[in-house]
């Protein structure tokens, strides 16, 4: 019987080229993309032909959902914390270092000031869950002038949205206000927010409306 000689052959595939490709792809993704911002509500912004890019600094985004719930986000964490302190002061609310740290990590915030302490004490997962519950009246920055209360107590006694914007503008004069809303939102909902911004106290007349690029021809 002839012995079959098994040749010792290594099945070694050279992965160097593959590695090159993946590194290239990775570099591309890292440089061109931006991280998705965590937002409590998903909105589809309307399309426009405007090609102005959103500024990266000095931006205050007002996120308005279909029912008129308002969430705010600011790019500068220091200013965000300073704004929180300025807004809470008239209500006699102070925060612990831990609560401040929790607030600093929030991408967008929208809770009545009276519930801010309790909200910041929650772990992150519970905070997200809380914000997702849109039935909850304690979600969203209150933008009503009159007192709002329910069985569990006062939710807000005045227009906290106005206070937030005023405090933020006080801290940073160059702040640009961007409005982000779903395309199916009824106009009165957006108008209410714009009217507050235009009002006698804030006197803001310039906004950025966040849109997505309209596909197809722009002629």
């Amino acid at each position: 019987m002839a012995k079959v000689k098994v040749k010792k052959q290594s099945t070694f595939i050279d992965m160097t080229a593959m590695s090159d490709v993946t590194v290239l792809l990775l570099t591309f993704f890292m440089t061109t993309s931006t991280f998705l911002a965590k937002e409590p509500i998903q909105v589809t912004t309307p399309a426009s032909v405007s090609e102005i890019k959103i500024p990266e600094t000095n931006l205050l985004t007002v996120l308005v959902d279909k029912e008129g719930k308002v969430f705010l986000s600011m790019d500068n964490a220091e200013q965000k914390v300073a704004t929180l302190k300025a807004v809470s002061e008239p209500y006699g609310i102070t925060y612990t270092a831990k609560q401040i740290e929790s607030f600093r990590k929030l991408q967008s915030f929208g809770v009545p000031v009276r519930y801010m302490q309790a909200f910041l004490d929650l772990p992150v997962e519970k905070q997200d869950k809380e914000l997702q519950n849109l039935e909850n009246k304690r979600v969203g920055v209150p933008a009503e002038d009159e007192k709002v209360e329910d069985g569990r107590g006062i939710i807000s006694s005045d227009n906290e949205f106005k206070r937030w914007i005023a405090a933020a503008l006080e801290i940073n004069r160059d702040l640009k206000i961007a409005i982000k809303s779903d395309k199916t939102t009824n106009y009165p909902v957006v108008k209410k927010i714009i009217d507050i911004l235009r009002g006698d106290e804030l006197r803001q007349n310039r906004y950025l409306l966040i849109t997505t690029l309209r596909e197809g021809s722009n002629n």
Partner: protein
Amino acid sequence: MAEVQQNEKGEGGKTKQKKQHLRVDFTPMVDMNMLLITFFMFCTTLLKPQTMNINMPMKDENLTEEEKTKIKESGAVTLLLGANDELYYYLGIPKDQSTYADSTYLITSSYGAGGIRSVLLEKNKGTYEKIQELKAQLKEGLIVDSVFRTKSKEIQEGAKDYAPTVMIKPTELSTYKNMVDALDEMLITNIGAYAIIDLTPGDRFFLYQRTGNKEYLTDEQRVELEQK
């Protein structure tokens, strides 16, 4: 896992200079890169949101009244944004009761190329053509972006006396998208003077007349109508 074939030791003293075969296995490296790519693909977005600048008129009653008189009647175009993506417009400023009785004064139109855009383009032809020329220059690289912007502003300023002034009046039944679409048309047709204003009772009456929808009217108008 790097595969390095080493010389066998043990030949006391002298080391034999063997052909060394050095090969590094890149498979784990590829694995890791693939993981990172997947992570970036899921957690990031390539699209950067665009923005649209909008300047609202000052909320000062006296000022708006003054501005109103400034608008030349021939150049005035009023857009009424209705329910269900409907769009109506009229030219000029309604004078008296006879205009409101005229049912042909209000014209039904639509968003997009076939509708309001052709009307606005016709009205704003001179400015539009000049800016298109500039745009062509920009595309060819003859001018830079900042020059394009200042020049197109100059054109719009220069045409002030005969260019149309568009008043966008979104009703309570319209959506945010309608407003953005209307503003978009202003950008496309290069109209320099436009503003978002509240509806007058007359505008509401026009819409009611056309659609029969009482929701366009104010409470007082509804009461008045019922009394008749």
